[in-house]
């Protein structure tokens, strides 16, 4: 089995920069082994927590850190933990969301493959904070390598007494299950994920009740992203104040950005929140500029579900607020770059095909709407565009947005709406001339 993702990281920067903690050891080929992880200070935070911190103290430290969900929604992690009812007689559960499948996003995979114990330690600390004794990690089924790595790390953690009964003699018990998916992007949506763990079809649930109150098996449940949980041990070790000193005023800490598309040096880069997008794309230490010295045409800053940015918008901080201010989102931190030879209709067809395929089918606007959109956009791409198509697309988008149970509907239409806003003339050209304004033909080497 090929374990190692060959993805480029900035681990070398992280090794000499204490602000960058997630990637410090990801280029160490032995980091996945428990002995190496422990030698690098691993499980110290978990021991500290077990050694005398109360669940409230742990939650308070994470609240103080300002950590926000790294899966896409950006909800404050500590606050989420605080929503678990203190007086509930039911068991509580933690689910680590490792269903990484938003196009452009390939960061959680690296953490699981190369630093799996960091994920387990974060999960354990979060479990303790919410009073959970059985934690799950939901890994997408295609990630055979991550599944093996996580299972192996889990076995090691049990053997060393970091998991199991009466951990470190504290009286606290914690079990772990590695649960694998069956190939469905929607299971990264937290309520669909819970249905999937329960053995159901991965369809989202109406909220409220929110999972923190009624989640897995109708018990209080917290679902957190891999990267969010991997950040937790560092917050416990160095303190919430330290973490909050990183990043911007409202977007704290560091974030891993997956850079892909037409850049010379695609890769996974851990940087402080607020890092400049233009620098990420052009600096030799990161993206190193556009492939073939072409002109930049646009950027998707946060994964396939976030609105496009145009070249004049990229001098912006990579943080929740800055991107929101200019009409986009940080999302999962997946930056997809495309150059001048990319037809916007072709690009949108790729995106809408994905969302149509991944719609779970529960809500009519999303199930039918994504299908209609794909049909119309495919027709335009193939030279059958008709007058009024753009308006029709806009209309369908407007009827999906905000009208579905989960955010997949919104995710499907937001990039389309922004692509029409930014490049309406190109859509019109495509419809009138029955062909692309720019000829998209990308050959692999």
């Amino acid at each position: 089995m090929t374990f190692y993702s060959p993805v480029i990281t900035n681990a070398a920067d992280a090794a000499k920069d204490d602000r960058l903690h997630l990637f410090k050891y990801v280029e160490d080929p032995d980091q996945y082994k428990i002995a190496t992880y422990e030698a690098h200070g691993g499980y110290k935070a978990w021991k500290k927590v077990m050694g005398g911190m109360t669940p409230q103290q742990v939650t308070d430290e994470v609240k103080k850190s300002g950590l926000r969900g790294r899966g896409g929604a950006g909800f404050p992690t500590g606050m989420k933990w605080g929503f678990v009812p203190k007086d509930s007689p039911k068991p509580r559960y933690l689910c680590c969301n490792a269903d990484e499948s938003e196009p452009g996003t390939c960061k959680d995979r690296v953490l699981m493959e190369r630093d799996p114990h960091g994920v387990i330690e974060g999960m354990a600390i979060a479990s303790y904070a919410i009073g959970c004794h059985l934690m799950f990690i939901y890994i997408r089924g295609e990630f055979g390598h991550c599944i093996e790595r996580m299972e192996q790390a889990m076995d090691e953690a049990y053997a060393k007494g970091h998991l199991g009964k009466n951990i470190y003699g504290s009286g606290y018990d914690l079990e772990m299950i590695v649960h694998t998916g069956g190939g469905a992007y929607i299971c990264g949506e937290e309520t669909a994920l819970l249905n999937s763990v329960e053995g159901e079809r991965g369809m989202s649930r109406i909220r409220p009740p929110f999972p923190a109150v009624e989640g897995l098996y109708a018990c209080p449940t917290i679902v957190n992203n891999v990267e969010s949980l991997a950040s937790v041990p560092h917050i416990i070790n160095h303190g919430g104040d330290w973490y909050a000193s990183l990043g911007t005023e409202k977007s704290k800490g560091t974030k891993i950005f997956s850079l892909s598309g037409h850049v010379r040096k695609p890769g996974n880069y851990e940087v402080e929140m607020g890092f400049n997008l233009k620098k990420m794309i052009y600096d030799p230490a990161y993206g190193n500029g556009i492939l073939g010295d072409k002109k930049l045409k646009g950027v998707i800053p946060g994964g396939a579900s976030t609105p496009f940015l145009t070249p004049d918008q990229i001098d912006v901080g990579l943080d929740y607020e800055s991107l929101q201010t200019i009409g986009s989102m940080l999302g999962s931190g997946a930056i997809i770059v495309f150059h001048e030879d990319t037809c916007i209709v072709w690009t949108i067809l790729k995106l809408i095909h994905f969302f149509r395929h991944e719609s779970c089918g529960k809500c009519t606007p999303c199930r039918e709407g994504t299908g209609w959109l794909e049909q119309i956009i495919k027709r335009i791409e193939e030279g059958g565009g008709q007058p009024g198509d753009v308006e029709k697309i806009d209309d369908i988008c407007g009827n999906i947005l905000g009208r579905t149970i989960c955010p997949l509907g919104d995710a499907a239409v937001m990039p389309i709406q922004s692509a029409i806003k930014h490049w309406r003339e190109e859509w019109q050209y495509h419809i009138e001339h029955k062909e692309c304004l720019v000829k998209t033909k990308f050959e692999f080497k």
Partner: protein
Amino acid sequence: MILSEASVSKIKEKAARYPRKKSAILPALTVAYRQLGYVDEEVYRAISQVIGVPYVEIAEAATFYTMFPKKPRGRYLIQVCHNISCALLGADSLIGYLEEKLGIQKGETTEDDLFTLISVECLGSCSTAPMMQVNDDFYENLTREKVDGILQELKGKA
């Protein structure tokens, strides 16, 4: 029983860890798929017996997910990501190249049952595009030369 003893004990072992037996459906389907290379009605029935969950609930879940096909595929399942990050770096031409090399169209299996070629949604290798997954293994940063080598190696192993 279509499931091997090893599969049955693996499924039971996994099922025992969950608070509710229905949760063992996906793990059981995964184990069954790994043994057989497909999961059809006969397999749903077998899983139903092993974990004590009604047949219909197994079928309901199994048919939602893409990883539990009802029919067997070639010995090597080649899945090429065709989503945006890979497409920007030539995934469509990669699919075309594989079609040409294997002498089949996307969705088909070679006559010797060695290779099945399909294109799939994002596999989380966006910064190492273009890519393909062959059974469990990921092959990334693909070039024509690499693809030639991989196919040759797989044929050699067969």
